[in-house]
């Protein structure tokens, strides 16, 4: 695996996105920006998952005329992470939607999006 191969770049990007996402979650006070941080985080993970599945010069994991069952192992990309990433995206969507619903409710309550104003419960 060379340093400039596609999967390597993808993985680095994924990690950068994760760090970026965490950074956003931890530093931005705006609720919406925090939710966006989560989206970045999720995306980063998804990219990493896909990058793991990538096998150089291989084709999509569909067994048809192009790829016979016999040499599938050598020719196709790993199908499992691809399945995972689909699930992960769906879950990420669900979570994001729910979070946004919460954000909406919070905003309706206090007319602000500053996370520091929702600290009534503590200790």
């Amino acid at each position, binding site marked *: 695996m060379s340093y400039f191969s596609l999967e390597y770049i993808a993985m680095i990007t994924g990690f950068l996105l994760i760090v970026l996402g965490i950074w956003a*979650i931890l530093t931005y006070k705006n609720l919406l920006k925090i939710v966006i941080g989560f989206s970045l985080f999720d995306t980063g993970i998804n990219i990493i998952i896909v990058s793991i599945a990538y096998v150089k010069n291989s084709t999509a994991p569909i067994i048809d005329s192009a790829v016979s069952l016999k040499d599938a192992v050598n020719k196709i990309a790993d199908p499992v*992470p691809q399945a995972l990433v689909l699930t992960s995206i769906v879950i990420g969507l669900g*979570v994001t939607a729910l979070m946004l619903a919460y954000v909406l409710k*919070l905003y309706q309550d206090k007319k602000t999006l500053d*996370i520091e104003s929702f*600290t009534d419960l*503590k*200790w």
Partner: protein
Amino acid sequence: MISPIHIISISLGVAFAIGFLGKNSNKLSAVIMLLTIGILTFISAQWAQAFYFGNQETVQIFTAGYKPPFSINLQIGVSESIIILLINSIGLLGGIYLFDTLVKTGKNAVVVYLIFIMSLNQVVLTQDIFNLFVFLEIQSIATAGLIVLERNRNSISSGFKYMIATGIISSLLLIGIVFGYYFTGSLNIADFIQANMMLSKGGAVALFLILASLLLELKPFPANGWALDVYESIKPGTSAMLSAASASAVLFALYKVLPAGNPQTFEIVLGFGLITFVGSNLLGIKQTNPQRLLGYSSVGQIGLIVAILGMKPFLGEKFTFIAIAIFISHFLAKAGLFWLSGIIKADNIRDWANLRKKPFLLVLFGTFVFTLIGFPPFPSFFGKWELIMQLSQSGYWYLVGVILLGSFFEGIYLFKWLGYAIKLDNVNLPEFNINWKKIIPVAIVGVLTYLAGYYSSFFTTGTEHFEKFFVPLFFIAILYFLDFLPNFVKNIIAIAGMSYYGYILLPGLYETDLLRFIFGAIFIVGGVLTLIAGFTYKGQRKGFHPAALMMFAGLGGIIQASNMIEFFFSWEMMTLGSYILIIRGKKSMPHGLSYMLFSLAGAYLILAAFGFTFSQNGISLEALKGLAFAPNLIYGLLAVGFMTKTASLGLHIWLPGAHAEAESDVSPMVSAILLKAGVFGLIILFLSMGAEAAGQNSILYLLGWLGAITALVGNTAASFQEDAKKLLAYSSIGQLGYILFAFSIMTHLGWLAGFTYSINHFLFKAVLFLAIGAVVLRLKTHNMYEMGGLIKRMPFAFIAVLIGIITLSGVPPLSGFAGKWLFYNAVIEKGWYFQGTIVFFAGTIAFLYSFRLIHSIFLGQLKDNHRTVKDISIWFIIPIYTLIIGIMIFSARPDLILKPIGNFLMPYFPTDALSWTDTMAKTRLGYWDGTWVMIIIGIMFSLIFAWLFILSRKATKVEQFNIAYSGERPERPETTHMAHNIYAGFNKAVGFIVTPNISKFWASASENLDGAAGYFRRIYNGNGQTYALHIIIYTLAMYLMIF
């Protein structure tokens, strides 16, 4: 049998189907949902039964027609079946509990609830790590949905915090899973375990991320602020599900994945679990909101279970039992407590006094609290016992200490809370509604705790002969269900039960074991006598009899115990019963708490010592003898543990209040009788130390000094009391100091003195406390200076107190002198001159309070409002005079009792220190003939009395104020009754002895603990971002510690 896959399919099917129902079918959908969960429960019960009673093997269920790793597989074995049975049944009960809320919120909420339960099932069943992740996510989303069942500002903001936290955690989990897959090529947990991921750095990191995120899901301290906010703000019904059901699933997930690690992984999980247990319980001390407090407790308990998972490698075959026993206690009790908080609807634990309006709810509350702390007969007792034993066995003694410390912290806030519920004023609190849908689930889990406890006893080492300890408990349970009967009837039943117990127990003991016979007689005969006094009370006297009998059953149990678990079980039963008895007093709340906390700490020390003993010599009580390793540590722990009950100096501050504020017939029970349990424990300890070797033991030397100083301080403090019952209470401290001193001497004579003191203290303290208690019942005050001159109104009480104080002060001819005489001989023979002198000094101080007691109450001036008061109740007179007959027999024929004791001591202390010729006792130093002394004094007294009577038989009786008073007639008794602060001069001279430094010490200790809890809990600042930061830091810290 129905395949567990259908748990998923049925739930999903029903969830979709509900969507098709019409708009107004909320109720129907909720019913369908409950039926569905009922079916799930049935399925899991069927499996559990097959595993447990049949010979069902673990089953793998493959999906999609492929074997793993190419498909997801489920596994159901014995553990899985039990866990999902628990989850589904609590889901069913929780569904019933939340029924109204769910119906009101709509059928979407119903669906969410169903999906929530389903996802937990799948988390338990799945063997595929990614599937685990998916269902954990579904569980999180469902939880986020359930959170908004309660719609207010706090619940919504806490829901958002929850989403932030679980979002980060699940992302970490996902990264871990993906890299785990990368390194192992499989998503199957079994393959993960096979693959030995710890060998490669990358695999180790992946596994670390998986484990860390599972751990984080379990809300480890201190990265758990989000969870606490959720627990506090949402519907208690939902909190119950989170604490009980979700936690069980995630714990099981952790349990499944954990074997993929290496021994070090287990240690780390253990460490973080324990940090959570101790830390969370410490911070719980400062909580006042019931739900938040339960949140802290929940976090703590789960931490303990996590730690137990981490201990798996060295708990051996007992691991499953320990984990399940402790887990199920948490599971049932926490669900019950959260549900109760939903019924009571109070924001402050002080308002739980309201619970008392429905006494059976209070009983349930108590049940749950005692279950959490690990009192018998609940499963956690057996679980904790076995945990401590196995930990000690494996040599992890320090872990024993940490666990007990955490448990103690938990005890602090739970018992404070229980005390509030039992005692605080509830008049101004609003009425609350009783909804059977909410009561039934609580009642069911309440009953289950008892069943689970009973069942747990079968799995614990050393419980082969436990039936004799359970039979009294069944009797007590029956008595509890008869609680609606009038006091009179219940008292007869109780006395009959006790008498029968004594009848079958005592005669046999006299032949075989005199030591146990003596203490058994004190416990049971004393119990019967003090119970007789209970006839005075009118009405139902709810809750008294079960508590009293529980205490006596415990006391009887420690006599019968032949191994350490029997002893400890009985010891804790006794503590439990006596706590309830003590806290029944009007102003007893703080005293009940301090009694409980000292008892708890003492019990934990005993438990630790038993554990360390077990690890060397096995479980029999005989194992305490001849310890090869760290004997002084073990003996020291035991001594301190037992001394919490004997209230030796430093550990005594609970006693005065507890004894003084208790009810009139309870004070003698807890003073004359209960304190002897500690003495019995010390005797067992001293006997185990071995007579010859122990003579040189420095522990005994220290105990001797401690006993002497306790006697001095206790007696001096007693002299300065204005409250009659407090005076007697401090006197008990002093007397127990004598007893401690006497037994510490460890010679034939010393022990004889110790036994004499124990018997005497039982007799006279019962007489005094009964008499004074009866007087207090009549006068409605404890303050002696408000009494006076009562000899005219209460001659029977006066005579009783007179006999009592003569015995107490050791004046011949009554039996108290036997103790003093033996003491002199023992002290000189042993060479403990200075300690002995302090003890004798204390003895003379006893005259001060004896005189004060009898003078201030019975002599001096009769008060106007007492001119028509009647003598004490006949129900007090009967036991008092029975005891006085005992004193008289012991005084006239001390040989009858002391000779057999001497013979009993021969095997232990073979020196023939005391010989008897008829009634004459002779030692190396001196001699004494109790019978002759009695005869001589009796005759002389009669002669002088006759002489005076002949000379002055015509003396005129005069009125009360007819005294020489400088020509004035003092008409107010208050001004003429010299009673308040009568030892002012003595106080000025030696009062410094009793400056309450020890009380101050404990007060500042508890303040500091409180302060620490208050300080550290500030990390939970309520900001979701901070909580996210906690999670990140926690993970990083773990990472740095591991790699």
